[in-house]
């Protein structure tokens, strides 16, 4: 055992060293600046404004003494912890499959896994509900299962990004030295993946903790999370004071959790000799083929079934099925023209173009800010960790709090931006940026500093070395991050619902509005848009995968 560990230490794996990045200090500060300004301006300022305006002693007392609130906090915490553990455990299976095996349709499976995560919960949740056994309806089990289903993409993408670049020779060496496959997996592969696992787990935990749509849909009135409670206090009871105190409570709890995850991530940090491309293998043995086949089938069924349900719902227009809703959205529709009274209240088709436009802007913002921030985070050590956590905070804050905060902060000249068209992509970028960082940082951290040393020895300037080494290795995760940011923007609902304006509905907003009215034809149109959103998401993610492969063949 010792022999094997010694071999690992003296080989390519090494504890992280101080000052791994030779970038000049001023440049690092410059890289961190956009992220700092962004978070300070569009997150910290609004939230602090809301908190200081609405905190009252009575609201604090209510939160401290109300037993019902304590129950909500406890439930929120344990279901999030359980959801996280299960999501990671289950997610590693497809992550392994996609990182290590080559098979026909690999890119499609990758895209398919991502679809549930970015689709609005109203949409997939409904299909999920239809497939759920009655005995699980409105139970905590249903919530946890749904969280695994929705968040598995985070693990697959986050861990998979590192896994596919992990050199195989260590595991091979361990096997040669007599370790069992299970032990190799545990002591080599998982140990090396630990930083990425903790990074992904922290996001899964955040999402499960602040879960809103899933909880309302599948948990029912008996299982509110803190996020639901905040929303209910603020919008239903008009009690902004208690809502703000709860929001800060949630922030503190999640701040502690995220800091713990970040610490674990650093503790397990090792420098790896990352290969830009590690050879994937085709399944050879019978066992491998069974594993690959079974995993693919599970993904296709789990994601495919709700998608088929979406399409079926888009055809229900009254008695029986028809294409009327599809014609209403895309065609010069017969149904509407002979019935002028038929008014869905929004332009369904325009919501598709609006969403695409917003997604492009949001993607650009989050890639620039997230990319710069990732470089700064890896260069900065301890203060880098602070920046990392700071970027995650928006995910830990209820959408209601940010929405109301923005409203009362940017409400008078020269910053009366209520209703500005840029607010929605900015809101989306706030959500998407931490994902870009999550995807890029683990790869960047694992860059072997000796590569840069070698470059310097060979006469390269620090800038040149940085371009040829860091930038090349970062390009791939950055593209993945861009695709993810785009998809997140397409599907974002919570923040948008507080910023959206009449006539500028995004797809998820349009879907929600259509599903919230009686009438089969409107409902079916909502599902038409949901199908469109699912297909768009799939195409975007699959395209990003294609670009990545192409770059690889050139490299």
């Amino acid at each position, binding site marked *: 055992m010792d022999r094997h560990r010694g071999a690992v230490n003296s080989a390519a794996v090494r504890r992280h060293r101080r000052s791994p990045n030779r970038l000049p200090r001023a440049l690092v500060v410059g890289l961190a600046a956009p992220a700092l300004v962004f978070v300070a301006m569009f997150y910290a300022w609004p939230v602090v404004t809301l908190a200081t*305006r609405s905190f009252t002693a009575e609201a604090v007392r209510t939160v401290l003494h109300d037993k*019902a609130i304590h129950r909500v906090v406890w439930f929120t915490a344990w279901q999030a912890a359980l959801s996280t553990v299960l999501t990671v455990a289950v997610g590693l299976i497809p992550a392994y499959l996609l990182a290590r095996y080559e098979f026909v349709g690999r890119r499609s499976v990758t895209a398919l896994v991502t679809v549930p995560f970015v689709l609005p919960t*109203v949409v997939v949740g*409904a299909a999920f*509900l*239809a497939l759920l056994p009655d005995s699980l309806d409105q139970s905590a089990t249903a919530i946890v299962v749904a969280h695994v289903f929705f968040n598995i993409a985070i693990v697959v993408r986050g861990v998979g990004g590192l896994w596919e670049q992990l050199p195989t020779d260590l595991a091979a060496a361990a096997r040669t030295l007599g370790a069992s496959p299970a032990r190799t997996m545990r002591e080599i592969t998982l140990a090396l993946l630990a930083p990425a696992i903790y990074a992904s787990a922290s996001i899964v935990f955040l999402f499960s903790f602040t879960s809103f749509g899933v909880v*309302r*849909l599948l948990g*029912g*009135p*008996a299982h509110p999370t803190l996020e*639901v409670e905040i929303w*209910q206090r*603020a*919008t*239903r*009871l*008009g*009690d*902004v004071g208690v809502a703000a105190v709860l929001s800060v409570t949630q922030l503190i709890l999640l701040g502690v959790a995220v800091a713990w995850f970040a610490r674990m991530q650093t503790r397990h940090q090792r420098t790896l000799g990352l290969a830009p491309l590690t050879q994937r293998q085709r399944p050879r043995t019978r066992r491998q083929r069974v594993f690959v086949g079974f995993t693919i089938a599970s993904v296709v069924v789990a994601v495919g079934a709700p998608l088929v349900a979406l399409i079926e*719902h888009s055809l*229900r*227009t*009254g*008695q029986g099925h*028809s294409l*009327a*809703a599809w014609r209403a959205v895309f065609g010069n529709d017969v*149904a509407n023209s002979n*019935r002028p*009274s*038929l*008014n*869905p*209240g*929004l332009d369904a088709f325009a919501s598709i173009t609006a969403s695409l436009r917003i997604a492009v802007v949001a993607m650009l913002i989050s890639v620039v800010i997230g990319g710069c921030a990732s470089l700064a985070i890896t260069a900065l050590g301890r203060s880098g960790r602070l920046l990392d956590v700071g970027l995650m905070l928006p995910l830990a804050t209820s959408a*209601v709090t940010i929405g*109301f905060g923005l*409203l*009362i902060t940017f*409400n*008078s000249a020269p910053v009366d931006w209520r*209703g500005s068209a840029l607010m929605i992509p900015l809101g989306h970028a706030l959500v998407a940026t931490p994902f870009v960082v999550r995807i890029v940082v683990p790869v960047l951290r694992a860059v072997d500093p000796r590569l840069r040393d070698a470059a310097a020895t060979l006469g390269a300037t620090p800038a040149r070395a940085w371009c040829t080494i860091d930038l090349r290795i970062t390009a791939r995760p950055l593209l993945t991050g861009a695709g993810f940011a785009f998809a997140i923007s397409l599907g974002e609902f919570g923040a948008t*619902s*507080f910023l*959206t*304006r*009449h*006539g500028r509905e995004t797809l998820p907003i349009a879907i929600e*509005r259509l*599903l*919230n*009215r*009686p*009438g*089969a*034809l*409107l*409902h*079916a149109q909502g599902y038409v848009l949901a199908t469109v959103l699912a297909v768009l998401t799939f195409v975007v993610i699959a395209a990003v995968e294609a670009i990545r492969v192409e770059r690889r063949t050139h490299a």
Partner: protein
Amino acid sequence: MKQFSMVVASATLAISACSSGSTAATETKPASLTLVAYDSFNVKPEAFDAFTTATGIAVKVVTAGDAGAMLTKAALTAGNPEGDVMWGVDNTLLARALQAKVFSQYTSAQLPTLNASAVDFAPKHEVTPVDEGDVCINFDKAWFATNKLDPPSTLADLTKPAYKDLLVVENPATSSTGLAFLLATIARSGENGWQQYWKDLRTNGVKVVDSWDQAYSEAFSGSAGKGPRPLVVSYGSSPPAEVIFAEPRPDTAPTGVMASSCFHQVEFAGVLRGTKHPAAAGQLIDYLVSKGFQETLPLTLFVYPSRVDAALPREFIDYTVRPTDSLTVTPAEIESKSKAWISTWTDIVVR
């Protein structure tokens, strides 16, 4: 087209009726006004063309979440509002809106043409009633025909074994229709009786979900969702919507309304306090209650006009019943007691 010219005609009338107003002299005419409304305000931009033609002022619509979120936002920004006029605070939210001083007073010359009992909600005229409707139990006609059972006719029927496991309602803590139905049962059974009524409903298998769309579109058997339960808390105007928004269009409504279960809702519009254009905002209020605009409401928002002389579309006459004695609770009582009612309800029904 005919409808449009009617809108123009009545709008011009409405505006000329009030243009002799006093504050107009001190205020320069704005290029546009902003109307803040709830998300489901499905009125098309063209609906304001007549107003723009008559006054030269454009109307921008800003949606601000559901009615509750919209009011919270308005309360947070009271005095420095997001717009000039707000549409859609209803009688369950009215007391909170008045307490937060969201609106400034405006007495429309059109008040005598509006439903007097609705006008009485705001004796100081901070708000003007614009539409009304009911939250009622809807039933699936086909289900009751197939199962040879009469639809329930009173709220008390719902606790009988014959109707076990048939009703789905929304959580009053998270849904406005759910709250309206809870208020209906409180109005019916009284402060002392409603807890027992809900205990009985629970014993009889009432299902509670978190939102209207879940209840109506997933759990209810009479909608496109084809869920398992034939009784749902929805709107009195849902049956006409099921006829209008179906392809092919059915000959009759697939659902009916249980008239004795209805809670009456009145929606109001008001001039937002702090607007820079109070006189123009008043003109917009007059337009909102003009005959032409009011007559477009049934088929856009699926509500009844506040104006007593507004004609109703055929669908609203043929496919639904308008309850004559819907239940109600005063706005002041709703504001002061609903928090406690909801928490008691949660203890009885959910835990």
